[in-house]
């Protein structure tokens, strides 16, 4: 028997709530993550059915979209059959086949969330949300505001509810109408349970009610929960808690009811005829979801099979890596760098490119000169202990008075409006005709001044705010060694080795942080690239590296660079430190990069309707650059849209396969890592990072309204930390429609080149990583490095996998073909 007196455990409920609420950071730190991370304990499809049943999320494409894909051949007959056979017993197959192809397609689902709280509307005829939300949201956003308002929330010292209390206590007016609520708030011993008791009258309903209440505005609750856990996510830190928010919301609700009925109303429990189904009670699987599951698997494997088929049949085309390459270039593993590497290689067949997380194995904080804060430039979970400072920065920051606080002064407003108002149409006209970089632009090159100096090396004794200033030589050596070994670059160094970070340029883009490097905590990777190149050139480091078995010849020079992924421009750092011959060589390579960048821009332009890709490459490139600084361009680039693959292996594995821009690529050489030591590190990052990006795109695409942010066109910036639609709405989390519209929602397929038993053993080492694979939130296929046989990871084991035979296209002048379509392109083999 359950003990009813202790049926409500507040701490547990809050923890439970936080687990399910969106965990999206404020805009400036926007980082991709699995939107439905809370369900990750379950296998993917089980989790999907749960998420729909409990919270009403839409987690797959619409049935009609699958059918359309089937008709167009995007879902292959073979994959369809296979997916059907995999989960349906033979006697039921024909029934399911009919259901899948001709069954009803507009089935609505009931959700559990909201079932207690809807009593207000049903029984009491009170539209609670309409009356409580607008003011509640405005109070939270004013309290958390980072600098939109001119006049700030006047009290901050003692937490959210305490601040509201002092605001009310020292006031000639009140936010509340009800006397009872005013007295309740004054009482410092007031607890959430007391308020819940007034509203519900039955402890058993508390948890359900709080879920109903908070999931009526998951955006705000999620933000509060994130800031409670990590107050440092705001520059102007605020003390707030989910508890305070819920208590204040309950008070507002009592206030509304008192206002309508006086104090004579009865709590919800008096009117509930039957107890609603507990939110998290077991979910029974339905035929509808079996259908979704089959469709989704068929949809995914249709594409995977094409990729795997192409990889296998490219075996014959494989060329060995150049023995003495002209140059080598390290890029971020980011899927957007997939195509630029292909373009570089196609111009210079004798070069070598690598992929690795864009922080280049360096974990540190960066502080530009004059910066009041330090910026983390490594993966989010890392806790760096090193600070790298910039000195001698010469960039002047320009101002824009349209955001000046004086706009709301009595005379300032009048002055700014009447005088500068006249210039506005000219500014607007100029941006329409000839857009250029302005103080409004979020530009990757503003992250660091290339002419300023970085204090990279330290002796390990100087500290600032608990951070060690600069790396010691040993630390530098460790990091460089780790980097080089993980990507398999331990010998045959070319005269020039580029380390290319990436960032993005855009304007009028609230989600700008999501466009920069995820491995650098949503910042451009310029500092990391510059630092790793400096470390690579450091004679002391090279000496120690030689002792550890990696010999970098003195003829080799490292060069740091930044690739702007939206403009397709590259910036090179510290080239003045190169000697004459290296500089000369670099100047040649720079031209090669320019050409590759223009080609890359041209390839990207095929997705942009407003650009005619058949025009000369240089014109197209100009047009691509222009759109990054145009105020009216909501798509400066398409970011990670269409991502679907992660390749962990040597470049030769996929070098001759056209993967569009759909693959994260992490270089890795199984031969120097027989035990999978580096592989483990790589997969520990690939699963959550690439997997997280992939799933955020997936969910934002399939439920753009609830799990995505909807169209960005009506977005309104709130407090500098979030966006809403209009002025009364909930914060929108996830990705806007413009970022995901061309995305095909398929889970990530991780392709690893190694022996299957090593991979299996490796992924099992880290339970967190293993969970991703075991529960199928990402797929895993292993390519045997010697036989090129495929193994699919399924049910905790490796199974040999046969790709249904299908002819793979070969193409030598592929660029024209690629440019001829806006759509996704089937993988094909590039002939040299």
């Amino acid at each position, binding site marked *: 028997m359950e003990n009813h007196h202790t049926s409500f455990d507040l701490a547990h409920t809050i923890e439970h709530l936080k687990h399910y609420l969106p965990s999206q950071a404020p805009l400036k730190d926007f980082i991709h993550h699995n939107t439905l991370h809370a369900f990750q304990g379950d296998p993917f499809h089980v989790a999907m059915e749960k998420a729909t049943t409990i919270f009403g999320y839409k987690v797959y494409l619409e049935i009609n979209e699958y059918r359309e894909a089937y008709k167009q051949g995007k879902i292959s007959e073979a994959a369809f059959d296979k997916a059907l056979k995999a989960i349906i017993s033979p006697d039921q197959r024909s029934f399911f086949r009919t259901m899948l192809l001709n069954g009803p397609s507009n089935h609505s689902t009931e959700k559990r969330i909201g079932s207690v709280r809807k009593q207000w509307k049903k029984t009491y005829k009170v539209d609670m949300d309409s009356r409580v939300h607008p003011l509640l949201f405005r109070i939270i956003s004013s309290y958390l505001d980072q600098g939109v308002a001119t006049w700030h929330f006047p009290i901050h010292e003692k937490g959210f509810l305490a601040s509201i209390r002092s605001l009310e206590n020292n006031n000639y007016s009140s936010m509340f109408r009800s006397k009872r609520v005013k007295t309740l708030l004054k009482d410092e011993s007031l607890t959430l349970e007391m308020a819940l008791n007034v509203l519900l009258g039955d402890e058993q309903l508390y948890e359900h009610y709080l879920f109903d209440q908070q999931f009526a505005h998951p955006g705000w609750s999620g933000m509060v929960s994130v800031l409670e856990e990590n107050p440092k996510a705001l520059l102007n830190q605020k003390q707030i808690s989910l508890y305070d928010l819920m208590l204040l919301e309950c008070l507002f609700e009592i206030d509304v009811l008192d206002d309508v009925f006086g104090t004579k109303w009865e709590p919800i429990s008096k009117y509930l005829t039957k107890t609603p189904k507990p939110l998290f009670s077991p979910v029974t699987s339905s035929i509808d979801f079996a259908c979704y599951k089959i469709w989704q698997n068929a949809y995914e494997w249709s594409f995977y099979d094409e990729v795997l088929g192409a990889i296998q049949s490219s075996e014959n085309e494989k060329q060995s890596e150049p023995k003495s390459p002209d140059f080598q270039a390290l890029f971020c593993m980011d899927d957007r760098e997939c195509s630029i590497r292909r373009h570089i290689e196609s111009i210079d067949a004798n070069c070598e490119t690598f992929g690795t997380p864009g922080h280049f194995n360096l974990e540190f904080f960066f502080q530009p000169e004059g910066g009041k804060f330090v910026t983390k430039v490594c993966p989010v979970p890392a806790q760096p202990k090193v600070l790298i400072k910039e000195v001698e920065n010469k960039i002047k920051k320009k101002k824009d008075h349209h955001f000046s606080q004086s706009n*709301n002064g009595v005379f300032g407003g009048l002055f700014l409006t009447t005088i500068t108002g006249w210039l506005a149409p000219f500014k607007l006209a100029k941006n329409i005709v000839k857009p250029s970089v302005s103080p409004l632009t979020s530009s990757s090159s503003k992250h660091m001044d290339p002419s300023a100096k970085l204090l990279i090396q330290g002796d390990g004794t100087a500290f600032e705010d608990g951070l060690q200033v600069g790396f010691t030589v040993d630390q530098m050596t460790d990091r460089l060694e780790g980097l080089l070994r993980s990507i398999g670059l331990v010998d045959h160094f070319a005269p020039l080795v580029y380390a290319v970070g990436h960032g993005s340029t855009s304007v009028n883009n*609230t989600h700008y942080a999501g466009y920069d490097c995820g491995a650098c905590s949503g910042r451009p990777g310029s500092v990391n690239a510059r630092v790793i190149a400096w470390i690579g050139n450091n004679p002391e480091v090279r000496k120690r590296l030689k002792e550890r078995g990696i010999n970098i010849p003195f003829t080799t020079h490292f060069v740091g660079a930044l690739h702007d992924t939206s403009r397709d421009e590259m910036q090179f750092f510290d080239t003045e430190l190169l000697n004459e011959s290296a500089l000369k060589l670099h100047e040649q390579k720079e031209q090669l990069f320019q050409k590759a960048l223009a080609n890359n821009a041209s390839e990207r332009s095929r997705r942009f309707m407003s650009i005619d890709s058949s025009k000369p490459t240089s014109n197209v490139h100009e047009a691509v650059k222009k759109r990054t600084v145009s105020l009216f361009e909501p798509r400066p680039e398409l970011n990670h849209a269409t991502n679907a693959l992660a390749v962990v292996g040597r470049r030769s594995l996929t070098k001759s396969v056209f993967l569009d821009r759909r693959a994260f690529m992490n270089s890795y050489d199984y031969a120097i890592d027989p035990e999978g030591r580096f592989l483990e590190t790589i997969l520990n990052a690939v699963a959550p990072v690439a997997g997280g990006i992939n799933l955020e795109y997936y969910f934002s695409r399939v439920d753009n309204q609830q799990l995505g942010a909807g169209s960005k066109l009506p977005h309104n910036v709130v407090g500098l930390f979030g966006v809403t639609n209009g002025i009364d709405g909930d914060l929108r989390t996830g990705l806007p429609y413009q970022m995901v519209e061309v995305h095909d929602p398929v889970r990530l397929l991780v392709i690893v080149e190694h022996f299957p038993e090593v991979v299996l053993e490796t992924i099992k080492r880290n339970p967190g990583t293993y969970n991703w694979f075991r529960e199928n939130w990402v797929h895993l296929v292993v390519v045997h490095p010697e036989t090129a046989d495929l193994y699919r990871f399924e049910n905790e084991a490796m199974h040999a996998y046969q790709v249904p035979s299908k002819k793979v296209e070969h193409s030598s002048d592929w660029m024209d073909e690629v440019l001829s379509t806006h759509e996704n392109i089937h993988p094909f083999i590039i002939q040299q």
Partner: protein
Amino acid sequence: MEYFILILLGIPLLAFFVTLIIPKQEEYAIAAVVKTATGINFLLAIIFTIKWILNGAVNLHFNEFTILTSGHYSFYINLYADKLTFTFLLFGSLLTFLIGIFSQRYLHRESGYKRFFNVFLFFVFGFVLILFSGNFETMFIGWEILGISSFLLIAFYRERYLPVKNAVKVFSIYRIGDVGLILAMWMSHHLWGQNIAFYELDTIKGLHDTLVTHSSEATIIAILVFITASVKSAMFPFSSWLPRAMEGPTPSSAVFYGSLSVHIGAFLMLRTIHYWEDQFVVKIIIGSVGLLTFVLSNFTARVQSSIKSQIGYASIAQIGIIFIEIAAGLEVVALIHITANAFYRTYQLLISPSIVTYKIREQFYHFVPFKKTIEDSWPKRIEYTLYSLSIREWNLDSSMYRYWWVPLKKFGNLMTFLSIKRVAFFFIPVFGVGLILLSTYASMPPFYLHLLPILYGGLGMLMVLKAFTERRSVLTSWSLVIMNQAFILLAIAFNEHLSVLELSTFLSGVIISGIIGVLAIRRLKKLEKSVKLNAFYGHVYEHPKIALVFLLACLGLAGFPITPTFIGEDLLFSHIKENQLLLASMVAFSFVIDGIALIRIYSRVFLGPHIKTYHDVAKRSS
């Protein structure tokens, strides 16, 4: 030179019709039409202005043309242009041109691309028509166009709850303004015994003298006009609609709610300046409301933590000052201020998403934890009080709810007993009795002749209130609106004899729209099981065509200028005598609630989050 006016009006209207027939997916074609139309209009506006100045800048008026004459009553279209017109025309056409180009790319691949530009052009047409209107009747046509296109623009994201809710809210507040204009029209009919044109006040001394001699009527007219202007320019106490109108794509908020729409109220005050320039009291009222609006909106703007509401309130604060300038007779200063404010707010809204990048960078380098503002030096209690009042927008939004919606709903809810059957059993006989009484019209004692219009007008009001609060049956609500129209007609018929022409003018639109509406609802009911008024059902997702037909029926029934009913409404007013303010108010009130009730039906049945969830459906709070 007058033909310029016709071209300037004709181009957006023509472009509107052209974009209606271009297929949805032809983005380039739609955009080309919009750019050409707004571009030509901007060019023409410049040429026209230059020509006008070279010709000595005399006020122009276009020979009126009559749409309908019946006995003593005529409905004229009258066009007029003076420096006020040209100022608004210049900045208006420049902004619409720029925003047209801007939106072409900004809205790329948005599912409502075509719909946006249809409404955009319709709005521009309404705007230009108001600028050139030479009398209240013509202006009222433009006014109605602005109202309905605002509704459609705010509810652009019709699959979400808040845009639809706010669109209905704004439309309803706009309707309050419409009463002002209807009644002002009615009073000036009686004041001069004819339909008066603006230029006549300007030039014919006798007409102007009437205003001075009948100062109380003149004051009422001025105040009615001022109420209308206050609504459109978001003056106190109507301010809270403006930030709530910012639900559409940013450029439409920028050009319409940042500049064109909000300044139309100021335009109206300047246009009617001759009505009130000699009325000291009116000037004091205008100035004080302007000042009060400035103070309250300035405080409200200062505490806004969302960028669009901040710009909205900052704009209202400036318009408050503009109203003071207008009251002080500083016409030129006001025009300069209006233009600058329109430009400034449009641009501010367009670049508003950039505030994150800009301010975060600024803070990174110049961070001060808590910046002191002037308010911090005030006594705590005063500071906190002002702060919390400003956060609550000085209760302007909640008062609107408390003192306008709640009473209306309460009143309507009193009549829950009125099912469609009971309506039929009670009101049809009552109406029949009315008809019989009407046939004995000549032999009726005068006392009853006074009473009956009020009685039937009152019954009509009850019906429309019920229509407005009906939660179940769409058809009940719909029929009640039709019956309201019939009762109003009967009430007026008791008042004065109506000719067959007049009857058919009024009824033709009502009957045709009424039938179309019923057919549309019945068709929808055949296809869907949830066709009620209890929530928003979002049927436009699956039935956009039925939705469009029904919207047209709503507009027809509401007396929107697409059917003769529009003129019919004005015509009915001409039969209300000048001493019958009560009857006039009842009829005006009925028409206003009619409009709101119909838009409510349309919104609830067709807009908002779709009741079916096989596709992605937005949360109510988004």
